[in-house]
Each structure stands twice: as structure tokens, then as C-alpha cells.
């Protein structure tokens, strides 16, 4: 930080101190600032602390988004979103789901396994245009054969079997097939503050890749269901 910035920063602190002297009740844990001022200071710090690198751009990475804005605030406050607000956000995200134009939800589970294994893509050391991975195994158990899986998300082993899917093309299973597609496309449509990326919505995976992941989870021949 330059000297000018330091001065500006000190001034911001003193100004906040003067304005707020005597209303300690509204301040956060003796930080001498209100929560709103701390939010503003955080945004200022973010603006001054990050720079574009490789394919990752500051303007895109911190673009305002009503979903993450609401969830971040809820995490900071340590209070879950109200059921009503969560529903609003889920509805907002539901609208972004692009369903397969040809009505084909299932691809090749073998391709799906490759995508699930790959954690590549979208970091500042990745190249533009290269196929992204789904990062699935980083957080989920999926097949029994792969022992190196993360535990941030629930186990997806036997995902289709548990849900009684024996023929994923039958009309009886359409609801669960659509849910699986939608969850991968935009996880926040079903759980407002889900830890899971919005793979389709954010352009991490394309329609064909989503098809392959759906097959990995729902095809009775997939090792997930055997």
C-alpha cells in the first residue's frame, strides 16, 4: 500500500471514530464501526487487494450477485436465511436452469466419471478454452472404486439405486432425472446457500458434460449403482 493509501485509510478510521463516538451500542464488538461500515471497509480492502491474473478477472470474480451477497451476509451474522428469503433465492436460480433442448438428460457414464475425476479449470494457472472438470470427487464419494474422495458434500454412492431408478428413461423417473440435471446446472435452485458450484449456470460444464454426469449418477450400468 502506498503512503497516500495509508493516510486515506487512517482518515477513514478517524472519521468513523468521530462520527460514531458515543453510539457504541451499534458498533460491532468494539471495532469502532457499525456492521455496514465494516462491510464497506471490506469492499474497499477487496478492491485494493486483488489483481487480474491469467484468465481470472477481478471484475468477474467479484461481480455483484444477489445469491452470494445474501448467503455471505448470513454466514457473517451466523444466522441462516429466513425460509422466505431462501425460497426467493432458490426461485431466482431455478429460472436460470437450461433444460436439454432435445429432452435427452443422460449421456455416457464413462465420460461422466472422467469429468467427475477432474478438478481442472478456471484457476489463474489454467488456460482459457481448455475443458473444465467437475471437481465432483473433491467433495463427494461417488463410486466405490475411487477411495480418494472428499467429504464436504454427501456420498453419492448408489445415488440412482437408492432412489429406485431402474430405467432412467421411464416417465416415472422423470422427476428425479430433472432434479439431478437441475442440481448440477444450478445447485442454488434447490439450496440457496449450497457449497456446490453452479456448474451449468456458471459455464463450468457444458450441456454435454452435464449429461455425462447425470448418467454417472443415474445409469443402472454406472458403477455408482452397481
Amino acid at each position, binding site marked *: *500500500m502506498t503512503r497516500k493509501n*495509508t*493516510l486515506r*485509510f*487512517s482518515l477513514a*478510521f478517524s472519521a468513523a*471514530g468521530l462520527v460514531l463516538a458515543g453510539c457504541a451500542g451499534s458498533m*460491532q*464488538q*468494539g*471495532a*469502532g*464501526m457499525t456492521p455496514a461500515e*465494516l*462491510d464497506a*471497509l*471490506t469492499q474497499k*480492502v*477487496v478492491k*485494493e*487487494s*486483488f*489483481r*487480474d*491474473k491469467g484468465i*481470472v*478477472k*477481478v471484475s*468477474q*470474480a*467479484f461481480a455483484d450477485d444477489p*445469491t*452470494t451477497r445474501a*448467503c*455471505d451476509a448470513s*454466514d*457473517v451474522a451466523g444466522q441462516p436465511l429466513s425460509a422466505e428469503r431462501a425460497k426467493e433465492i432458490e426461485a431466482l436460480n431455478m429460472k436460470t436452469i437450461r433444460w436439454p433442448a432435445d429432452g435427452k438428460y443422460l449421456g455416457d457414464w464413462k465420460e461422466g466419471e472422467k469429468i467427475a475425476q477432474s478438478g481442472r479449470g*478456471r*484457476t*489463474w*494457472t489454467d488456460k482459457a478454452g481448455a475443458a473444465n472438470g467437475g*471437481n465432483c*470427487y*473433491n*467433495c463427494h464419494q461417488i463410486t*466405490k472404486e475411487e*477411495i*480418494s*474422495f*472428499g*467429504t*464436504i458434500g454427501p456420498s453419492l454412492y448408489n445415488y440412482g439405486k437408492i432412489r429406485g431408478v431402474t430405467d432412467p428413461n421411464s416417465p416415472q423417473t422423470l422427476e428425479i432425472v430433472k432434479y439431478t440435471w437441475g442440481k448440477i446446472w444450478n445447485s*442454488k435452485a434447490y439450496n440457496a446457500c449450497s*457449497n456446490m*458450484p*453452479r456448474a451449468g449456470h*456458471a*459455464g*463450468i460444464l457444458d450441456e454435454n458434460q452435464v449429461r455425462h454426469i447425470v448418467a454417472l449418477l443415474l445409469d443402472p450400468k454406472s458403477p455408482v449403482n452397481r
Partner: protein
Amino acid sequence: MRKTTLCAVLALAAFAPHAWAQKSTSDGIAEYREMLQDGNPAELFEAKGEDLWKQKRGPRKASLERCDLGKGPGVVKGAFVELPRYFADTGKVQDLESRLVTCMSQLQGIDPKEVIDGAWGKGERANVTALATWVGSQSKDMKFNLPQSQQQERAFYEVGKRLFFQRGGSHDFSCASCHGEEGKRIRLQDLPHLSGKAEDGVGFAAWPAYRVSSGEMWTMQHRLNDCYRQQRFPEPIYASDATIALGVYLGVNARGTKSAVPAIKR
């Protein structure tokens, strides 16, 4: 030799039945880490750092022996476990690395840009890494006790908390996506819970550390930088306020836990 051992441990695990293998792999890695404790290559960086502290360097041909790391000029023991903290002379909250940069600039006349715009493992930034390793090692087994007496320190804790929970980038990841719950893993890697109850020598209390997989010494700045890379965020500028505020948040949360610095990592 070191890499061969790890490969052997992992290869063994790959052929084993799965429940046993998970247990065994992390046990094996823990065993392997313990084995290395006797010969942590971080010692080489410690020795280099001590040398750099005492050596007359830079345009002013001065040593860093008068550098004030928060406990008075020249006091090194115990300084690490109280950083980041507020410094009246710069009017800023600073972590160990940004403070070292200030001392190198003020005492030795070394341009901070050489570190801030430098590259990992090269030039003056590599020197700061060695210095941080040595300074950190002088507080080994001491308990973290970051001051929160200054308004700026308390404000930075609150800013750090907001940064910890800030989702962003293409994947909506925040620090909390991986480090917000107890007992989680990415693949087989155990993740420290950084917003909750801290443990001795884990998370904040483990950096600087020697990374066996890359054969590099990593400081907290380097650790945060690579976390943000994996988070699909843009690059945090070295010693920027975001990195310092996160340091305050993590460090205050680690209060009372013992420092394992310099640690050794996979």
C-alpha cells in the same frame, strides 16, 4: 528418497480395501510426516533467515537487528505468535512478512516492490520467506496471543471474517466452503476448521511450512495465495490488506493454540 516414501505409502493404500485404506493412508502420511520431523528441510531456511537478519545488507548496509516486530527493536522470541498486529509507526496492521518488508525498507533501504511484485522463491521475496521461517521458529511451541487492544486490530478481525465468508469467482467458493466445518476433507486431505475451535499446530499455527510435494518453503502469504488460486479468485497482492485481515481473523481464532512453525507438509 522422501518422495519415494510417500509414493510407497499411497501405492500401498491404493490396493487396500477402502475403509481400511482411508484410515491407513492418513495414518501413513502422519507417520511419514513424523519421520521427517527429525530432518525438516525448513532448518536450511531457518539458518538462511538468521543469517539474513544479522547480515549488513541493502543500499544502507545495515542489519535487521533493530527491527521492531511488535515487542520492541530486536526482540524476536515471541513476536511471531502476536502477529498480525497494529504498528503505530506505519499506522497499519501488519503481518510478519509485511513487517519484515517495512524493516528491510526502513533499515536497509531495500525497495518493498522487490518483494511485493516479486516471485515466490526468488530474490528479496525468497529472503523474506527465509526471514519469516527463522522468526517464526523462535516462537515454536508458544501459544498464539494476537493483540486486539487497538481499534484497527478489531476492525481487521471483522474485515477478515467477512473475507473468510465471501463467495466469489466462477465456482462461488469462499474460504468457508472448505474450512467452515469440523472434520471435512478434499479428496483424502484433511481440512483445518478455521472459523471454529483451533488445534495446536494446525491451520494458522502451521505456516511457514516446508512443502514436500513442491520442495518449497511456504509462508502464510504463499499459503493464502494458493488457497485463493484454488478458490478461482484473482490473485491477492502480496501483503495486501485482504491477506493481513484474513491473518488477523485466523490468528485471533487460533488464540491459545501452540505454534508448530516451521511445520512440514505433504
